[in-house]
């Protein structure tokens, strides 16, 4: 074949091939297929688009804060795809908060502890070895029985989130049977509320506010719509106050323009830490103008005369104006408005109510309610018994080792002569351990994250190094779990049964039942079962104290007759607690301000934490969806903003959006500066809930933790941590 023939054939063939090909469907078919590939296969490669299927709904109760909201999950086959507020639930009736709605991220996220794990590297190095439950429980039992043999049972401490409900009570029972008095309840405003109830009304009770029934709400720094109390319930009450039917006036006393202050009818910024003085100042005006409920005072109170004498002598509007920074005229106006309202209500509990705060402040605010006779009546304050009654457990069996251990004084001094009023002092933990290394040999932690949420993080970190064995029952790799030696993961709250005691601050009893809505995603166990397995392996009276086969059986027996109804409806409720009105006692004690730590020479500004609805700051890390909702003036990239008044910024040469160093006697952090007209001059507001180091990269490494800059200031009466701020220095970089 010559070249010409070759070329002719080639050209001919190509032309034929081309023409032929154009007459086949290959081109447009492939074009169609490739476009479908880009739409379907490509994103699926990244996202793993899940299958459609049968949709079902299941009810349960949220566990992410003490609010106890009812939730309904939407499931597609065996996957949970959405968490919604449960319609008709007596706490939240269909509403949900951003944290609750993000719960699935916690369920399916990479921050879950997949199985029992043992530390494989240095503490906090995030190196873990997966082990069997048998081995894991063996590890704990070995430590605990060694200590028992040595007669050092009281060197075991346990931190729990609450002291109500079967699971915390199981921990408490375990400690009693084992022989240690050192059960520590995580700090909250409830500590102080309960104490105030005990002192002023002689009751072991918690405080409940009838927010829905009040028509004048005077809030002393409570973040009513920032997650205070049972968050959805309070936000719903706020909507009622804004409706024509139940209109109420809301006054917010707070140094910063929080959401609550923004939504209030009037915002009165005062110097932080002077709330007690203001409450007493208002009382002064109310008494002076005879606006108080004489009938109630005469019939239901003690100690009014002494208290009146003190208030009249020391808290004139002018004096209080000097202390608080609020004008005397405003004080008088406010006092009159409060006392003349039909159902006025003074509420207490700073921010979300996660810090104990100042006891005397709480009592002064509560005295205002007594002054207007608003105790145990609609629209008022109720003394609420701890929880709905359930079946009692058999008494704890104790051997001599347990009895000896239990008779030793608590490490935090709670209940001793020095701190007779309180039952635990959680914020003292780092101080105690650092002073007395070896005092705690084993630390058990359940549903709390003391490593992150205790004030003065660096002291806590130091203390952790001094505890030889830390066991976490956490579902997530939170900070405490990351620094534990062993993690015995609890089921996620969507995977388990649990009783939910009446949510914080609610004036009617509601007992909820948390139900598993999805099968356990990992090799986890009920914390109750783990604890009972430990007890059983310890043997003797410890084992005998836990006669139940497993946690669910225990729960059934405890709820007794209520179990069936609870399983069906998910909650039990009654009209009211029906607590009789006891006598109210006024405490005539001069106000002792709780000062912020640090000298104002070196640290001329005052740092206050800013608590946000969109930012969880307790034991639960803020899920990515919530972090995503933060304002751009709160977090930018991995840096958080502190808020300062432009006037303060001018004084210290700070500018909007610029980096600065924030320093307190307890720590230092690099921050960005945001100028805001919504904060008092001289203050620095710092969002609380950032700066996580646990979980994983989605949660950790964003901003700094406010707790790392704060210290513990002891309340002069209760001995609890009354810290509301700290002196600070802010210098531009």
């Amino acid at each position, binding site marked *: 074949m*010559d*070249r*010409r*023939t070759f070329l*002719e*054939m*080639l*050209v*001919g*063939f*190509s*032309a*034929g*091939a*081309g*023409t*032929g*090909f154009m*007459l*086949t*469907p*290959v081109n447009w*078919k*492939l074009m*169609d*297929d*490739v476009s*479908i*590939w880009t*739409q*379907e*296969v490509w994103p*699926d490669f990244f996202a793993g*688009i899940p299958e459609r299927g*049968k*949709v079902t709904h299941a009810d349960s109760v949220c566990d992410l804060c003490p609010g106890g909201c009812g939730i309904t999950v939407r499931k597609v086959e065996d996957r949970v795809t959405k968490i919604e507020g449960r319609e008709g639930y007596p706490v939240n009736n269909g509403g949900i908060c951003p944290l609750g709605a993000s719960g699935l991220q916690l369920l399916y996220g990479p921050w879950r502890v997949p199985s029992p794990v043992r530390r494989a590297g240095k503490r906090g190095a995030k190196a873990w070895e997966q082990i069997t439950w048998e081995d894991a429980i063996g590890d704990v039992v070995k430590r605990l029985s060694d200590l028992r043999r040595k007669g050092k049972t009281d060197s075991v401490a346990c931190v729990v989130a609450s002291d109500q409900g079967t699971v915390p009570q199981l921990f408490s029972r375990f400690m009693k049977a084992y022989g240690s008095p050192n059960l520590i309840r995580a700090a909250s405003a409830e500590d102080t509320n309960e104490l105030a109830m005990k002192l002023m009304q002689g009751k072991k009770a918690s405080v409940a506010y009838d927010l829905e029934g009040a028509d004048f709400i005077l809030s002393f720094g409570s973040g009513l719509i920032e997650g205070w109390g049972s968050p959805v319930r309070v936000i719903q009450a706020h909507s009622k106050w804004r409706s024509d039917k139940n209109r109420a006036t809301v006054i917010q006393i707070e140094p910063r323009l929080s959401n609550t202050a923004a939504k209030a009818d009037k915002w009165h910024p005062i110097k932080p830490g002077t709330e007690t003085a203001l409450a007493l100042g208002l009382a002064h005006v109310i008494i002076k103008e005879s606006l108080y409920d004489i009938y109630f005072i005469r019939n239901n109170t003690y100690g009014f005369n002494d208290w009146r004498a003190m208030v009249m002598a020391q808290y004139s509007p002018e004096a209080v104006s000097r202390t608080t920074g609020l004008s005397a005229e405003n004080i008088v106006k406010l006092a009159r408005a409060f006392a003349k309202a039909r159902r006025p209500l003074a509420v207490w509990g700073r921010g979300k109510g996660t810090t104990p705060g100042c006891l005397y402040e709480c009592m002064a605010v509560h005295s205002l309610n007594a002054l207007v006779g608003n105790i145990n009546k609609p629209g008022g304050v109720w003394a609420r018994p701890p929880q709905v009654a359930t079946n009692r457990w058999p008494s704890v069996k104790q051997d001599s080792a347990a009895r000896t251990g239990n008779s030793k004084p608590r490490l935090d001094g709670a209940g001793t002569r020095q701190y007779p009023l309180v039952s635990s002092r959680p914020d003292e933990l780092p101080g105690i351990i650092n002073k007395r290394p070896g005092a705690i040999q084993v630390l058990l932690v359940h549903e709390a994250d003391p490593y992150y949420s205790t004030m003065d993080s660096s002291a806590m970190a130091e203390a952790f190094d001094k505890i030889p064995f830390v066991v976490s029952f956490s579902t997530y790799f939170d900070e405490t779990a990351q620094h534990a030696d062993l993690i015995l993961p609890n089921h996620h709250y969507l995977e388990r049964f649990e009783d939910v005691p009446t949510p914080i601050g609610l004036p009617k009893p509601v007992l909820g039942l948390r139900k598993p809505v999805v099968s356990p995603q990992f090799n986890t166990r009920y914390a109750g079962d783990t604890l009972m397995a430990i007890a059983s392996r310890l043997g003797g009276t410890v084992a005998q104290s836990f006669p139940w086969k497993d946690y669910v059986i225990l729960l059934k027996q405890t709820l007794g007759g209520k179990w069936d109804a609870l399983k069906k409806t998910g909650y039990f409720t009654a009209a009211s607690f029906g607590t009789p009105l006891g006598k109210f006692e006024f405490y005539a004690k001069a106000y002792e301000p709780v000062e912020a730590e640090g000298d104002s020479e070196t640290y001329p500004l005052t740092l206050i934490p800013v608590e946000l609805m969109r930012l969880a700051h307790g034991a639960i890390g803020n899920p990515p969806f919530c972090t995503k909702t933060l304002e751009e003036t709160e977090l930018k990239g991995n840096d958080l903003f502190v808020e300062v008044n432009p006037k303060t910024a001018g004084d210290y040469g700070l500018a909007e959006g610029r980096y600065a160093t924030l320093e307190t006697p307890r720590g230092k952090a690099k921050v960005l500066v945001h100028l805001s007209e919504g904060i008092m001059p001289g203050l620095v507001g710092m969002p609380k809930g950032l700066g996580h180091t646990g979980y994983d990269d989605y949660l950790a490494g964003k901003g700094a933790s406010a707790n790392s800059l704060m210290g513990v200031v002891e309340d002069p009466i209760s001995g609890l941590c009354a810290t509301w701020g700290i002196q600070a220095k802010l210098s531009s970089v």
Partner: protein
Amino acid sequence: MSTTEEKEQTVEEQAEEHGPVYAAYKPAKSRGWRFLIPIAAFGVGFVSHLFLGWVIFPHLLYGKKQQPIDFSHQLHQEAADESCESCHFFREDGSFSGVPKLENCLQCHEEPMGESPEEAKFITEYVEPGKEIPWHVYARQPQCAFFSHAAHVKVAELECVTCHGPVGDSDHTRPYQYNRLTRYSRDIWGWNIAGLKKKTSDRMKMDDCAECHEERKGHKDACFVCHK
């Protein structure tokens, strides 16, 4: 003229020097059949590529799988006297159940009902271990599409066969062919590689939906009616 002659000479000289490459420029002797070469080549190319595109290409594009169980719709409809709705039903929320789950099968097949080897296989491989049958779904639509069976069956009163064809009469499951690129069933594009269809059930592409919507509703409908 002279320049041309010079050029020709130059070419011939070059041809002598460099061989046959330049010889090709010489006028060829007339050969009458030569013109057939490119035509034949064209023909070969044309036919081979037609063949490639129409016959080989579908084989390359589509993979083939057998259904895990050879299911007889006919048997179930006739012998068991079942209608489509007993297995393909609407759920309470109005969604359509589609391919039945094992639990539906178990309503009858707790114990073997016949002697078919396929049923025996079904019992041992799926019923006993409690495993769902991984059916390949011929009519599965892409994830960007929303299809409401309720709207079509209950409101527009379409017959199942309008879109699905006479599946109910089949005695054996036909092999499932899937597009290797898109992962979807060949039934979506239709079995004709050109996308031609004779009846409504031959294709399940968007245009086919729109065609019917236009016919019945007078317009093709808004995008969101079917897209999600």
